[in-house]
């Protein structure tokens, strides 16, 4: 037998399948313009791959990957959120029929059934038909699963407070705070310190070291608090004098600018 470079290859090494009606016909039996994989088709794939890679690199440069503050297991107020592709599973657990005593429904049964059905799809749908329209049940189930995933992800996204999520994870720059200053004394003696922390690093309330707000805005918030969508994010807090308020607001407003 001739081996090596000059060896003749006939077609490719496909498993000879018995001709049964539910085996699709070998594509070499269809008339059409086939193309050699190597090198013709591979070169085209290469080009598409290059275009894809450029788009991908533009994405990575335009949107640096996020990094939140270092993990702090003692922060009990943090609202967790999984990465976007698990959001639909996470959302499922929020419904009454899939949480609390029925947690197992949302956590195990529904995802488990869906995954098993997907794994066993060839045996659940053994008929010879391949067109989606001619196998209505598998198509319907898949469309149902698809729309549930899209719906649940959507619900999860619109019900999440993204601003709060951004604030709670922020990396707080360590700003040197002059604890002897008049502004800090006022801060520490008022109720501010209880929620915003000893170093203004945040706690129940957000960090105040880089608020990017003007002194007037800060004074306004201190007096009136913040109410968003009828939820009190910060209660009206300031009860002291106007003079002290001005000093306090000026102190907080200038914290970030000292570099």
């Amino acid at each position, binding site marked *: 037998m001739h081996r090596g470079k000059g060896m003749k290859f006939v077609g490719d*090494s496909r498993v000879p399948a018995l001709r049964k009606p539910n085996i699709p016909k070998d594509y070499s039996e269809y008339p059409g313009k086939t193309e050699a994989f190597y090198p013709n088709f591979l070169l085209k794939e290469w080009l598409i791959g290059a275009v894809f890679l450029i788009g991908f690199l533009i994405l990575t440069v335009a949107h640096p*990957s996020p990094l939140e503050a270092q993990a702090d297991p003692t922060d009990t107020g943090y609202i967790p959120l999984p990465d976007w592709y698990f959001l639909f599973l996470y959302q499922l657990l929020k419904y009454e029929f899939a949480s609390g005593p029925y947690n197992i429904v949302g956590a195990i049964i529904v995802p488990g059934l869906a995954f098993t059905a997907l794994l066993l799809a060839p045996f659940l749908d053994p008929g010879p038909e391949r067109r989606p329209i001619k196998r209505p049940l598998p198509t319907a189930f898949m469309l149902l699963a698809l729309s549930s995933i899209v719906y649940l992800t959507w619900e999860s996204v619109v019900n999440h407070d993204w601003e709060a999520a951004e604030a709670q994870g922020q990396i707080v720059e360590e700003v040197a705070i002059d604890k002897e200053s008049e502004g800090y004394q006022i801060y520490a003696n008022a109720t501010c310190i209880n929620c915003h922390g000893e170093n203004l690093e945040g706690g129940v309330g957000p960090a105040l070291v880089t608020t990017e707000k003007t002194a007037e805005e800060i004074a306004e918030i201190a007096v009136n608090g913040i109410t968003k969508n009828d939820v009190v994010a910060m209660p009206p807090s300031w009860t002291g004098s106007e003079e002290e308020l001005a000093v306090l607001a000026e102190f907080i407003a200038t914290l970030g600018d000292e570099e």
Partner: protein
Amino acid sequence: MLNKLYDWVDERLDITPIWRDIADHEVPEHVNPAHHFSAFVYCFGGLTFFVTVIQILSGMFLTMYYVPDVENAWNSVYYLQNEVAFGEIVRGMHHWGASLVIVMIFLHTLRVFFTGSYKKPRELNWMVGVMLFGVILGLGFTGYLLPWDMKALFATKVGIEIAASVPVIGEYIKILLAGDDTILGAQTLTRFFAIHVFFLPAALLGLMGAHFIMIRKQGISGPL
């Protein structure tokens, strides 16, 4: 020169049939977007592979700086992101690639499903593909913890609680993943690192090998 070198190796090892088996086959018209534009749906599998290769390469570079330890994990990622030359791009590729590979494998699964390509004789390849999907989701889940920032820690906490709610074996799964039955900490991070960098990639490569060998054996499914 190269030809001679090739011949020298080929004479001894008979390597021609190896690459011929991989590269020498016809691409049928119905999957070729050059002939039918709608055939671009057949590209998703290849793009999944492409992004997986990007993930492996960028991940290899990330481990040059990353330290799997609670004290240093976050700091090493912060340093990589802000100080290392092109670190932001390498981490960006790994971060966005993780999302992209899931998008691509999802589209690929839908293509195979709606063209009925999982039918006889390709049942085994479909099952291997679904397992690959599972492995990739596992890689996404374990990789999410590694930067050791707030969102990573608390998302993993929820994930492990869900795993723990599996009847009978839930508690054992939790201990296996977290390294402890109550604490989610140093042990968890090193376990997730090992799973993310060694166990799951090994499974991924094995399954991908099986996936591709089966494709070459059976060819692409015919036109609808």
